[in-house]
C-alpha cells in the first residue's frame, strides 16, 4: 500500500542524522522560509494545516502557539519546551524520530521558536533514551558552526531520570525546574505561566518533526492528507502479537485492521493465533475487541468507539492473553508511575492492583468485581492529572468488554488461561517484594 511520507521522508535512502545528508534533501530550507515570514503568519499557517499535537492530547498546534502572549503583553521571556519523554506503553515513535531524523526535529524546534518568539528551547528527553540522546546531541553539535541555522536560539537538552508522569506537560515543567515531577494544577496554563513562571509552549517530538514539512509544502497541501479532524500523517507504533512490530507512518483513515494485517504494516497475527483485543493508542486508552478493528485509525472514528489514538501505540493481543492479567500489569504500571500527589490516583491505583490480584487468584466473588469497577469509577474524573483517570478507564474497559473472562475467575475459578504470556510477569512495583523472597529455594 503506497503511503505518503512526511515525518520520515527520505530517511530510508539517506542518513538523515547527518547534517549534509539532511541539507541535500532540502533540510533547513523550511526554517529559512519560516524566518522570512512574520511569527503570526507561521502560526496562521500551522492553524491552516490543522496539525494537532502528537503527544496524545491532540490539540491544535497552531492554536496552542497562538495562546502565548505577545512579548509586549508579558515581559517574561518565552520558552519552547519539547516533550521527548515518550514513556507510554506501546509508543516508541519519538524514539524513531530522534534516532532517524534528528535534524528535521531540530528544524521544527527552530521554526516553532521563531513562531512563538522564543530564544530558548529545552528538549526534555527521557533518561532511558541514551542512544537517541547521543544522536540528538551529535546533530546539535553539527550546528555549532552554523550560526545562520541556529540563529540566536539556545537549545538545551535536558535528560529526565525515569518517571512516566513527566510526560504530562506540567509535571515535565516541574521536573525541568529541578523538582519532583508532580503535575501542577491548571490554570494557569503553560502558555501563560509555564517554566520559570514564563509563557511556555510544550510540544511533542513528532509535532516538531512535522512542522518543517508543513512549512515546506504549505498548509493547504498538508491538509489534503488524512481525513477530517485528523489531517496529515501519523507515525504509529505497532507492537505485541503482530508479525512486524515497528513504527509506520500512515495517513489517518487507514483502518486499524490494516495496521495489524497489511503485509507492509503489522503483517498479521503470528503463530496461527487469533486476535483477541487491541489497545489502540497506548496503555492509557480503552481496549477494543477483535470485532471492533474495522475502524479508521483517526480521531473521530476511534472516538465513536469510546477510545482514542492517544500517543498512537497499537498493541495487539492474541487469544492466549488473560485480560485479568493484562489488568494487573497495566494497573501495576500506573501504581508504579503515580506521582503520589493526589489522593485518588495514589491510593486508588494501588487498591486496583490489590483487587485484580485477588481476582486473578480466584479468591474474589462478584461483589469484588463490582468493587473494582466502583474504585475505577471513583478515581475517574477526580484526579489532578490524566494519569489516574486513564488507568481507571483502561482497566474498567477490560472488565466491560471481557466481563465473562473476569467472571470465570471468580469464586475459586482461578485463571482459565494456561499459556498467557502475561502470567506472573514481574512488574517493577512488585520487584522489591520479589527480591525479598528466595528465588532458588
Amino acid at each position, binding site marked *: 500500500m503506497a503511503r505518503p511520507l512526511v515525518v520520515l521522508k527520505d530517511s530510508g535512502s539517506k542518513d538523515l542524522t547527518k547534517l549534509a545528508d539532511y541539507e541535500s534533501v532540502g533540510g533547513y530550507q523550511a526554517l529559512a522560509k519560516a524566518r522570512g515570514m512574520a511569527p503570526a503568519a507561521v502560526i496562521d499557517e500551522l492553524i491552516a494545516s490543522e496539525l494537532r499535537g502528537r503527544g496524545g492530547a491532540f490539540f491544535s498546534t497552531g492554536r496552542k502557539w497562538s495562546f502565548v502572549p505577545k512579548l509586549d503583553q508579558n515581559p517574561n521571556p518565552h520558552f519552547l519546551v519539547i516533550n521527548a519523554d515518550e514513556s507510554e506503553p506501546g509508543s516508541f515513535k519519538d524514539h524513531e524520530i530522534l534516532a532517524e531524523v534528528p535534524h528535521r526535529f531540530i528544524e521544527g524546534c527552530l521554526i516553532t521558536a521563531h513562531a512563538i518568539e522564543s530564544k530558548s528551547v529545552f528538549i526534555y528527553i527521557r533518561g532511558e533514551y541514551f542512544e537517541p540522546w547521543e544522536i540528538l546531541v551529535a546533530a546539535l553539535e553539527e550546528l555549532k558552526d552554523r550560526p545562520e541555522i541556529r540563529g540566536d536560539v539556545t537549545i538545551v537538552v535536558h535528560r529526565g531520570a525515569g518517571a512516566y508522569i513527566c510526560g504530562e506537560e506540567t509535571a515535565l515543567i516541574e521536573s525541568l525546574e529541578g523538582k519532583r515531577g508532580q503535575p501542577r494544577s491548571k490554570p494557569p496554563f503553560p502558555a501563560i505561566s509555564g517554566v520559570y513562571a514564563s509563557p511556555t509552549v510544550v510540544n511533542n517530538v513528532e509535532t516538531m518533526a512535522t512542522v518543517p514539512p508543513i512549512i515546506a509544502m504549505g498548509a493547504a497541501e498538508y491538509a489534503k492528507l488524512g481525513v477530517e479532524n485528523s489531517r496529515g500523517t501519523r507515525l504509529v507504533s505497532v507492537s505485541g502479537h503482530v508479525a512486524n512490530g515497528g513504527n509506520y507512518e500512515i495517513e489517518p483513515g487507514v483502518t486499524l485492521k490494516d495496521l495489524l494485517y497489511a503485509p507492509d504494516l503489522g503483517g498479521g497475527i503470528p503463530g496461527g493465533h487469533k486476535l483477541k483485543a487491541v489497545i489502540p493508542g497506548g496503555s492509557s486508552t480503552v481496549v477494543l475487541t477483535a470485532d471492533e478493528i474495522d475502524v479508521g485509525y483517526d480521531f473521530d472514528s476511534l472516538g465513536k468507539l469510546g477510545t482514542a489514538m492517544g500517543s498512537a501505540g497499537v498493541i495487539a493481543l492474541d487469544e492466549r492473553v488473560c485480560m485479568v492479567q493484562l489488568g494487573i500489569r497495566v494497573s501495576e504500571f500506573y501504581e508504579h508511575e503515580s506521582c503520589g500527589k493526589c489522593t485518588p490516583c495514589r491510593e486508588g491505583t494501588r487498591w486496583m492492583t490489590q483487587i485484580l490480584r485477588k481476582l486473578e487468584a480466584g479468591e474474589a466473588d462478584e461483589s469484588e468485581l463490582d468493587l473494582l469497577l466502583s474504585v475505577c469509577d471513583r478515581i475517574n474524573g477526580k484526579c*489532578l492529572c490524566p494519569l489516574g483517570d486513564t488507568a481507571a478507564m483502561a482497566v474498567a474497559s477490560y472488565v466491560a468488554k471481557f466481563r465473562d473472562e473476569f467472571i470465570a475467575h471468580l469464586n475459586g475459578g482461578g485463571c482459565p488461561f494456561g499459556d498467557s504470556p502475561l502470567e506472573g510477569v514481574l512488574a517493577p512495583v512488585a520487584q522489591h517484594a520479589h527480591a525479598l523472597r528466595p528465588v532458588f529455594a
Partner: protein
Amino acid sequence: MSSPEHVTLTIDERTVEVPKGTGLVEAAQAAGIEIPVFCYEPRLGPPVGACRMCLVEVEGMPKLQAGCTMTATDGMVVKTARSSEKAADGQNSTLEFILVNHPLDCPVCDKGGECPLQDLTFRYGPGNTRMNFQKRTLEKPIPISPTIALDRERCILCYRCTRFSEGVAEDGELVAINRGSLSMIATFEDEPYRGTFSGNVIELCPVGALTSTQYRFEARPWEIQNVPTVCGHCPVGCNISATTREGKVKRVLSRNHPEVDEGWLCDKGRFAYGHLNADDRITDPMRADGLRSLEAISWEEGLDEAERLLRAAGSSIVTALSGTETVEQAYGLAKLLRVGLGAHAAVLPEGVPDALDAFRAPLSSIRDASTVVILCEEPVVERAPVVDLWIKAARRKGAKILMELPSAPIAGSVLITDDADAAAWQAQELGAAAAVYLPRTPNGRGVSDAWSVAADGEGADGEPALLIISGDEAAIDPAVRALAAQAETVIGIGMFGGSFAGLCDLVLPGTSYLERDGTTVNLEGRLQRQRRAVIAPCPDELAWISKLAERFGVELSPYSSTVFEAVSAALYGGISYGEVGELAPLPPRAEATAKVSKPANGNAPEGTGLRLLTYRPLFSGPAVERTPELQFQTPQGEIEITRADARSRGISAGDHVHVSSNGTTVALRAKITQELAAGTVRVAGSDAAGLHSFVEVKK
C-alpha cells in the same frame, strides 16, 4: 450587578458578592457554605489541589473541580456536596481513598477530637469500609526531632508540612521522598529536623501524623482549656494559645495575628514552656546560705529581709531590669523603689530608640516591601525569629534584599536594623516606608517607659549599696554580674536557683509570662496583653511588691488591671485594660522627626583576616536550658562564612575548620551563608570565647 472590584457568583443557589480575586473556598465561606479541605492553606503559597477533598461541580465544566484552586469569577455557578450528588460522591470518594490505608487508631491519637480528618469524615465520608486487604503498615512513630514525632501510617500526604519547610521557613529539611503510594515524609538520613520554625508543621498537619513529643498522651481535647496570650521570649510578641490541663501548661499553639505573626511561631515560643516546671524553680523566698546555696524562708521572713536590705541601702540602689517584665511589674517596682526610697537608678540591657516611631508599621508590611534593607550584625532569626519569615515572604514576592545601606533612597523600602544609635539616620537616608528596630529584650520598651513615668527624679552616681536584679535574664548577664560584685548586697527576683545562687543575699520568686497578667510592648510598639494561663507556684510579683510598697508608704494595687490604668493614663492614651484586646491594634505613627545627622562612627574595628561577628543564639538562655527537648536546637559549633571566602580557603559546607586569633583557636564546622558581607564570619557568642574581632579561618 457587581462593582468593578467585586464579582457575584452563585454557590448552592446562594448568591454571594466577594472582592475580585477571592478564592472559591473563601467565597463559599462568605456565603456560609463549607468547601472542605485538607491540603489547602493559603499561608503556604498558591493552592496545589493535591488532596481532592474540595471537589465541587462548576457549571460549564464537565469534570469535578478542585474548589481550592479556583478563583471566584462573575456569574460562576458552583454546587458543593450540599446540592450536588456528583460533588458529594467526589468528596466521599476522596475520603474513602484517604481512609483505605489510614490506621484509624483514633483512640490513641493525640489529634483525636480536634482532627480535621475525623470531622470531615463525619460530615462527608463513608460510614463503612470496603477495603478488605491488610492496610499498609510502617514503623511508627518516628522521632523526626526530639520535639516532633512522625506517624507515617496516619499521614494523608497533603504536603502541608513539606510546603511549609520549603516555601515558608525555607529550611528545606522536611521533604517528601519516593513516589506514588510509597511516598512519605522524611528528613535527610533520619537526621533531626533542625529549624527555627519546625514545630509549625505539627499545627499544620490535618491528621495525627505530626505530633508534639511533649504533648504526646498528655491530654484529650475535651479536657483542656486554651488561654489566649502573647509569647514572652522575644520582642516580636507572637500571639499564642496556651493549652492547659489541670493547672499545667501542656502545649503552646500559635494564635494568628495577621499583622504580627501570621500564625507562625518559633520553636522557642512553642516548646520552651517546659521551663515552668524546672527542677531549680524558686517557689519561696530564699536567703543566701553559704557561698553557693540558698535556703528557703517564709514569706514573712522574706519581706522582712527585703525591707531591712532596702532600708539599709536607702537611695543607693541600682535596679537591673531584664526587659522581660510586664509593664505593670516594672511600674510597680519603680513605684516601690523610686517613690518609696528615692532609688531612681535602673539599668536595662539596651536603650530602645523611639525615633523609629515615625516609621512605625505592622510587621506584615515587610512582606509588601519593594526592598528590604537589613542592617543587623546579629542574624534576624536569632533576635526576632518571625521577622525573618516576613523577610523571606518579601523575597518570595519579589522584594530585593540588601545587606547594606544603598547610596540613594528607595521608594517602598523597609529598614530592619539592630543599631539603636544609627536607626533613625538609617531610616531617613533610605527614605524607608517603614522601619523596624530589633531590640534584644521582649519588653524593653514597655519596661523602660513604665519605669520612667512612675516618678520624677535622677539616679545618683557611684557604686550602689544594693543591687536589685529583676529577672533571670539580667541575672545571667555578665555586665549585671559585674555590678553585683561591686554592690554590698544583692536582691534577686526570678525563677531559677541556677541563675541566682552565689549572686544574691536574698531571692524573691518570680513568675513566667505564662503565669501572669499584664501588658508588654513589642518591637512594633504594639501594646499586647499577656494572660495568666496557669497559676504560678508562688504569688506573682505585683502581689508582694504591693505589700512591700505598703511598708514604705507607697500605695500600689496588687492587680495589674488597676496598675495598668495609671500607666495607660501616662503612656497609652488612657485606654482600659480590656481595650487592649486579643488581637491588639498598632498605635498610629508618630510625627516625622527632624533630620538627624549621621552618628559618629564609633571605633570601626580594624584588623587583618575575617571580621568576626558574634550573636546570642535564639536557642539559649534560662528557659531553653531547662527544656531538654530543645537542646538539639542549640548551635552546634558552626561558623557562618560566605561562599567566596570559603572557596578561597578551600572550605566546603560541613568542613571542620580552625578559627583563630591571637593564639586562641576554636574548632568549628563551616556553614555557607548568603546572608553575610564578604570578609565577615559569624559565630554564636558561646562558641567565640577568646576570639578577637578579626580571625583567620583554615581547613
